[in-house]
């Protein structure tokens, strides 16, 4: 018997002869890769018992039908809570986790059973929750070494003799990371793994190696084989890609099968398999697709690899020589151009590695905080991340986890948004409530378990939400209050810890990523309350929190006005006021006293421009950056040309306050547009398919473009971004659409881009300064000689 200290990389389970076995993949404190098998943990679920029923009687009923449930090994009456109320329950211990789903359906029908609970918690997750084992965290466990019967690629296989205990240790072990990207070749149409080869596989590792596997002509068998060998030799702990879950892995798997071998790249020498969360799971390695994390970067609109890499300063767009998918064949077939394609592929992998470097710390901390394994946490939507965090907390306080129920979406009143005063405002401070909704939930004790429904007798000591009149017990502290208070105090602790560390040090990086993860989960909590897919969904919780939020902001506006602070705008949890530090100090201290909330200046705008519409404005920061909210430039349906023009117009207006100069700029831009000096890609409009193609009843431009692509053999699915341009010719807009990859610059309808994109986008701003739309059109603005003087 010995003790092992290890860092948890991945977890899965196997069932042999109805006997479950948890596989814990880890790295020990000596840097050895280990697999620990734990056969000691029994799967179970709960039966909640009807209020007037006796658990013993229900248990006897189950016993009498024992032959129907051969894998039930034990029944135990337990006291638990459900939505804060005490309930009687029976813990059903079922030896084979794969029978839980089936058994729960049968047992639910037994007299006295109100419902089954926690039957929908996966066994490996159950193991992590109950033992408080966290992914990307250090643990100690008693083990015994055992035979590596299955020839698993690890330094040692062990049998667990105790459950793992977490140990205090923050550093991350030295991980081996491999990034890759592939290029497929199809002479025409989208490539299909059944017939088209993978011609380039670019690989890079954090050991500094870069390698390309390049097919000779169309023979990809040797390169896929070399790629597999390379992975097995390097033996990465983490494999990173971009779009790998949906594209690269499935393509490689199908392609390998077609070529007659298995893509055995994991530590058990089996193929990657699709997991319940939708990601590709590699036994013993964490496969991370950073496309899943791009969702967390709202600043990046079109979430392509190159755009994300640009945003994260991994590789700037200007430095890249971009090659469109449709052009791959041209480059591959031409020996002179092929090196460019190789370079492009190499850079794709470099981008992947760079993104991994920028985001992996955060991914690991998020995984550790919410308890989802590293390869799941990215794929899980934000609601699920919050929920898994809550599930762990619920277990600790004896709360049963509600089942997931399908509910229809319902709208409810959200935050207050004031009518802005259109025009330019100078020196504006934006006052933000620090975590307003989480703080409201804490101070008002808003929680699914503190909610008092109208049918219940009103207890003494309640908080009543304004407008909606929902009632919440003020004592004892609710589930959400406890969880959120902890999160907030943990973040405060981390931040004071951070102050002691030097920026850039290993400890700093880890803790900084940790506080970001905590912040993400804290701020997502209110959104979770209003998400109909939430297990703890209670409609009045969301409604009441929103109502208190509205009351808070309205009170703040009232108070500001009384103090003589001019309010120019307000949205949800922030107000925009004329900057006056004295008065701002005064109201923030008063709000602290009166509402128990913290409000502070988040930023100062030198100048801010409001349109007459809500949620659409642009501010100039002291460092010269523009912040654009909700305007065309950040919305869909518009081509880059419109965005660029609007952004530049805003910049001229806000920095120089010269509308006439902005008008001149627009004229010049239109002139460039007509002379085709504007890059073709800036004419592309990007839109996401939100339904399957067949479900679209209307003839929308992007749907038409998608149809054309599919005719050309492209595989499109829900969520794909479709890029199209408008080409010259008669007819309605949707009849003038062409996918950008199939159209050429010469076909483009320049007049459309001028009068329907550039001019309206500029006019949106300039009309506020008395510039009529037709003044922007060149017919009223003769060309100048200057245009003919440039070489």
């Amino acid at each position, binding site marked *: 018997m010995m003790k092992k200290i290890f860092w948890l990389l991945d977890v899965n389970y196997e069932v042999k002869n109805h006997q479950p076995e948890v596989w814990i993949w880890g790295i020990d404190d000596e840097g050895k890769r280990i697999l620990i098998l734990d056969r000691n943990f029994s799967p179970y679920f709960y039966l909640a018992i009807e209020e007037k029923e006796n658990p013993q009687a229900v248990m006897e009923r189950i016993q009498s039908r024992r032959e129907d449930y051969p894998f039930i090994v034990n029944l135990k009456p337990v006291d638990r809570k459900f939505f804060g109320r005490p309930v009687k329950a029976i813990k059903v211990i079922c030896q084979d986790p794969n029978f839980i789903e089936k058994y729960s359906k049968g047992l639910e029908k037994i007299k006295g059973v109100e419902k089954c609970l926690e039957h929908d918690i996966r066994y490996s997750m159950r193991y992590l929750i109950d033992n408080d084992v966290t992914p990307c965290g250090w643990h100690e466990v008693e083990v015994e070494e055992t035979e590596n019967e299955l020839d698993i690629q690890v330094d040692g296989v062990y049998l667990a003799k105790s459950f793992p205990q977490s140990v205090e240790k923050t550093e991350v072990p030295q991980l081996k990371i491999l990034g890759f990207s592939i290029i497929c070749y199809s002479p025409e149409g989208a490539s299909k793994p059944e017939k088209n080869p993978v011609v380039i596989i670019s690989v890079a590792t954090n050991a500094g190696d870069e390698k390309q596997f390049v097919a000779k002509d169309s023979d990809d068998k040797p390169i896929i084989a070399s790629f597999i060998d390379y992975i097995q030799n390097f033996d990465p702990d983490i494999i990173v890609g971009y779009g790998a879950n949906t594209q690269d892995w499935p393509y490689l798997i199908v392609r390998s099968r077609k070529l007659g071998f298995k893509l055995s790249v994991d530590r058990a020498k089996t193929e990657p398999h699709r997991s319940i969360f939708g990601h590709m799971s590699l036994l013993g390695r964490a496969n991370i697709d950073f496309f899943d994390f791009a969702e967390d970067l709202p600043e990046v609109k079109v979430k392509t690899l190159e755009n994300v890499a640009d945003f994260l300063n991994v590789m700037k767009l200007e430095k890249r020589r971009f090659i469109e998918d449709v052009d791959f064949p041209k480059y591959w077939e031409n020996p002179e151009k092929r090196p460019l394609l190789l370079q492009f592929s190499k850079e794709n992998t470099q981008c992947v590695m760079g993104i991994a470097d920028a985001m992996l710390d955060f991914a690991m901390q998020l995984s550790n905080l919410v308890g989802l394994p590293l390869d799941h946490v990215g794929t899980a939507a934000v609601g699920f991340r919050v929920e898994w965090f809550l599930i762990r907390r619920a277990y600790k306080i004896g709360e049963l986890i509600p089942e997931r129920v399908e509910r229809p979406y319902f709208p409810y009143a959200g935050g207050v948004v004031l009518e802005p005063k259109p025009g330019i405002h100078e020196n504006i401070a934006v006052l933000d409530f620090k975590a307003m909704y989480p703080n409201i939930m804490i101070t008002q004790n808003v929680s699914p378990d503190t909610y008092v429904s109208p049918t219940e007798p009103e207890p003494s000591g309640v908080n009543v939400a304004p407008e909606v009149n929902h009632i919440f017990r003020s004592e004892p502290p609710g589930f959400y209050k406890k969880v959120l208070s902890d999160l907030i105090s943990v973040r405060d602790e981390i931040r004071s810890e951070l102050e002691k560390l030097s920026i850039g040090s290993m400890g700093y990086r880890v803790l900084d990523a940790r506080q970001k993860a905590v912040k993400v989960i804290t701020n997502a909590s209110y959104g979770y309350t209003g998400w109909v897919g939430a297990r703890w969904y209670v409609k009045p919780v969301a409604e009441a929190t929103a109502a208190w939020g509205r009351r808070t902001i309205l009170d703040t506006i009232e108070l500001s006005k009384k103090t003589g602070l001019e309010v120019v705008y307000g949205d949800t949890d922030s107000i925009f006021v004329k900057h006056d530090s004295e008065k701002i100090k005064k109201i923030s201290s008063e709000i602290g006293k009166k509402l128990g909330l913290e409000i502070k200046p988040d930023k100062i705008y030198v100048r801010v421009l409001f349109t007459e519409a809500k949620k659409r404005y642009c501010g100039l920061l002291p460092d010269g950056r523009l912040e654009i909210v909700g305007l065309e430039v950040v919305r869909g349906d518009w081509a880059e040309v419109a965005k660029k023009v609007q952004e530049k117009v805003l910049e001229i207006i806000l920095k120089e306050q010269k509308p006439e100069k902005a008008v001149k700029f627009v004229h010049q831009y239109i002139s460039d547009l*007509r002379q085709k000096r504007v890059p073709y890609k800036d004419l592309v409009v990007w839109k996401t398919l939100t339904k399957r193609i067949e479900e679209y009843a209307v003839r929308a431009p992007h749907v038409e473009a998608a149809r054309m692509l599919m005719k050309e053999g492209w595989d499109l699915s829900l969520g794909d971004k479709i890029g199209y341009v408008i080409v010259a010719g008669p007819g309605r807009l949707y009849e003038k659409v062409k996918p950008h990859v199939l159209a050429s610059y010469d076909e483009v309808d320049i*007049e459309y881009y*001028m*009068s329907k994109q550039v001019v309206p986008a500029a006019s949106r701003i300039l009309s506020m300064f008395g510039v009529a739309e037709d003044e922007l*059109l*060149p*017919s009223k603005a*003769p*060309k*100048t*000689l*200057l*245009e*003919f*003087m440039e*070489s």
Partner: protein
Amino acid sequence: MFKVRMADAKFLKDMISAISILIDEATFDLTSDGIKLRAMDPSRVAMVDFEWQKTVFDEYVCGEAMKMCVNISEMMKLLRRTGKDESVELSLDEKTGRLKIAIKGKYTRTFNMPTLEAIEEEVPTPKVTFNVRAKTTTEGLREAIEDASLVSDHVRIEADNEKMVMQATGDIMGATIELKKGSDALLDIEAKEASKATFSLSYLSEIVKAAVATSDIATLEFSTDMPIKLDFKQPKEGKLTFYLAPRIEVE
């Protein structure tokens, strides 16, 4: 030092008048060879390129090369006072920076006016390959443009090897003016390819009206949607050329 004399004051008056239609402040390049000016109007739609050799003057003295900037409409006010058979003398007092204008006829009057800070910016000529070259009488061109101005504020000029056609379309009325090769108005035309371009009539008519006093023959050069070059042949050693940017029509 700079001092020049011209026996016929009208000659100077007409030229300054032609320049004044585009610019308010004119910066002249004065050298021992003669005087030059090249400038764009404030909206940068048109440009004037003017040059007189020293032989144009009856007396011409210019020491070292310099730039002289004057308010041209003020200068015009004074020159308008010149009459038949009067001569004019310009001299620059470099100490005071004032320009002396002496008009001599039945009697002599001497005005003085300030010079302004010269604009140092060099104006390049537009880089255009012209496909059409048409030679007209200045008077014939003026007539045609006046006709077009009756119905619209812009005119489309089209040309091939046979003819030049001006097409004006106004809100209510329209006009087509056809000038055939070899006619009294259109002396000659060469077109490498048929071309058409549209120009603002307010500029065009002002330019031609002012130039007609200085020149009998005009050479027009243009290409599709490119600037037009109007060169007005000068009786003595000099040149007066205008460039005008096209208007791009939007359907």
